[in-house]
């Protein structure tokens, strides 16, 4: 090795002592430049800009003049490949091989994220933009399709019946899934045991249940055997089968985050399990549970295939979930776009845009409420908690003062202490 200082081992050097057995090799530029992991150097920023411009130029040249290639997607692909190649060449002018591969991979990661977000924004935006012609008619939200044929203009007919149907079905589904789902999640976390592990495995498996199979199950079990007709209630049951595992899983994750020392503090005060769950575990994870339920709702609202088999299609308003078909928004979209008429397709996009806006609203609410771990409070909640604990302190002090006045001689240990009442929250 050239790095190690190979001094001639003369006897005089050996005589010098055993103390000189470790030698620090003389550095000869063995350590490279310090690697910069965080910041983007200026020349790299210029490289990116230049490579993007060059990539677009190459693709445009190829598509417009040099070769007979056509199509927007092909243009995008070619410009991206050209960008990668040019970026690699530009980077290699100033940097070593490792840095070049690092930059190329980072560019790939960012482009994957951009593709994904672009697709999301584009899918949602496309739906809303195509839905605008239907959405700008106010009758779209208040009328039903009872009197509107496929050829009627967009100023006649609407999706009020589908909106109402969706709301009724999702309400029934929530009435079923919230208590059942959260109790099951509590069971998984607070009771435990072998059966709980089994339940967790089963509910995990249920998340993979194909939605059409859930619909088929309800169709076979409820529609053909019990009710003998399609109804909103059957659709709500099918949605519940789909939502239940989502809510169980999300609540399970949230409950697992509750710090154990809160539970132990509660048990140490002598409370029962039930009171610990009700007064400590559930309030601590309240925001997370609400988020779990809202996300489950957003998923449930968009389910089409289970509803397709169970709810039936109608053009009329039906407020009774137990009799007669009751259509919901996603099914209405599916039904509209089956028609070749442009106005029906426009109505389909309008209904889809309504659905998308509904899901977006639910999602925003979930983010505003949740996105916060258990025990992390907003400013207002923190003030409320501080106020409650100040009141508790005052009450305890008053009670103590009264007791001292009543029994000046008794020592505190002989006095049977009253359990401190729960915080009236």
């Amino acid at each position, binding site marked *: 090795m050239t790095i190690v200082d190979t001094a001639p081992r003369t006897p005089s050097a050996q005589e010098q002592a055993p103390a000189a057995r470790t030698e620090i090799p003389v550095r000869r530029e063995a350590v490279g430049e310090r690697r910069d992991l965080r910041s983007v150097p200026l020349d790299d920023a210029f490289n990116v800009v230049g490579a993007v411009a060059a990539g677009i130029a190459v693709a445009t040249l190829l598509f417009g003049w040099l070769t007979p290639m056509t*199509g927007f*997607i*092909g243009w995008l*692909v070619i410009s991206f490949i050209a960008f990668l190649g040019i970026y690699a060449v530009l980077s290699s002018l100033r940097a070593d091989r*490792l840095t070049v*591969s*690092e930059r190329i*991979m*980072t560019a790939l*990661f*960012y*482009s*994957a*994220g951009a593709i*994904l*977000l672009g697709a*999301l924004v*584009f899918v*949602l935006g496309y*739906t809303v933009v195509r839905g605008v012609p239907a959405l700008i008619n106010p009758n779209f939200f208040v009328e039903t399709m009872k009197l509107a044929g496929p050829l009627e203009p967009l100023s006649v007919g609407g999706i009020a019946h589908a909106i109402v149907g969706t709301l009724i079905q999702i309400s029934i589904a929530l009435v079923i899934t919230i208590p*059942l789902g959260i109790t*099951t999640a*509590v069971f998984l976390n607070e*009771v435990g045991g072998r059966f709980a592990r089994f339940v967790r*495995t*089963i*509910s*995990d*498996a*249920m*998340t*993979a*249940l*194909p*939605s*059409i*199979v*859930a619909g088929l*199950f309800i*169709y076979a*079990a409820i529609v053909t055997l019990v009710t003998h007709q399609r109804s909103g209630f059957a659709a709500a049951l099918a949605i519940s089968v789909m939502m239940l595992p989502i809510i*169980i899983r999300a609540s399970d994750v949230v409950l697992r985050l509750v710090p154990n020392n809160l539970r132990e503090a509660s048990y140490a005060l002598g409370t*029962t*399990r*039930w*009171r610990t769950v009700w007064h400590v575990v559930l309030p601590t994870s309240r925001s997370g549970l609400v988020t779990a339920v809202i*996300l489950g709702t957003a*998923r449930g*609202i968009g389910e*089409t*295939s289970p509803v*397709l*088999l169970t709810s039936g299609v109608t053009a009329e308003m039906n407020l009774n979930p137990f009799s007669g078909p009751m259509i919901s928004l996603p099914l209405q979209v*599916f039904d509209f776009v089956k028609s070749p008429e442009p106005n029906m397709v426009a109505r389909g*996009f309008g209904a889809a845009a309504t*659905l*998308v806006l509904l*899901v977006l609203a639910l999602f925003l609410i979930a*983010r505003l409420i949740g*996105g916060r771990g258990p025990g992390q409070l907003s400013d207002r909640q923190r003030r409320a908690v501080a106020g409650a604990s100040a009141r508790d302190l005052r009450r305890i002090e008053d009670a103590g003062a009264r007791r001292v006045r009543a029994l000046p001689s008794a020592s505190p240990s002989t006095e049977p202490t009253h359990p401190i009442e729960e915080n009236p929250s």
Partner: protein
Amino acid sequence: MTTDSVTEVIPASPTPRPRSLVSRPVQADRVFRAVCYAAGGITVAIMLAVGVFLSGRAGEALARSGPAFLWTQAWSPEGGDGQFGIAAVLFGTVTIAFIALSIALPLSLATALLISEVVPGRIRSTLISLVDLMAAVPSVVFGLWGVFFLQANVIPVSQWISTYFAWIPLFAVTDPSGARVTDAGAFTSSAFIAGIVVSLMIVPTQTSVMREAFSQAPLGEREGALALGSTRWGMIRTVVLPFGRGGIIGGTMLALGRALGETIAVVMIISPIFTINWQVLKTGTNSVSALIALRYGEASQFGLSALMAAGLVLFIITLIVNFTASTIVARSRSGAESN
């Protein structure tokens, strides 16, 4: 036995028994436990009921068709020659799922690495919410986009692939006599287009499982790699990817499970056929869920039983895939806790 007024000696019992540490729950706790067990029991019962019902109702059709159900391609349980089987639909399901996976895997892997390794904290949580939002977009909306926008824009790409890669049998597009077809009409409603749309729907699942696995890669090894002079990509390649391998495989299989069961978007895009079509760019494919969605309406009692049999097969396949996936994810989680 000596007794004085102060101490009393209690004779030792011949066999001292260990004190029982089991506490007896109070009444309220017993009710609480009962309610919890009941909720868990109902959840399990629903799942079991799905399986039991499907197998029960599928029995009639399976008894008539026998094992030929697995390799018959036609589907006419009511009229015609009464032949029915899931070979063609199952083949279509698997084709669509694998096309979706081959697009979704690189996309979600890179996105998961972007979220967990590259971007700083604030942008990270925004990206995570957006991926979650993507998971909540209804499938009918993806289907609409696929039919009304993507189809027209993907056909030139399909044509290009089939022109230059026709020597790979998968990408050739031929008519029954074997001649090459190039007009746009032969490329609509193909498994390829359905696969692209399904890939967008499974990427969120895959990304979030992978991201969680990556973020659990141990800090010590990461810092070790960086201290040895590695670049960030070098650190990812040598530390994050090996530790997250379970998450990558598990997340991909979970996504596969979802892709197999996807219904409405597929129904809207494909044009159903009942023959095995190897040419993924060519019009016509099918899937089990699309079969059920399209045929349940006019099905007789026996036709419904046949559909149940198809649903049962789909159910069993997704169960197997999902169980394998969660086992792999769970195992990778326990292994990643070194330091």
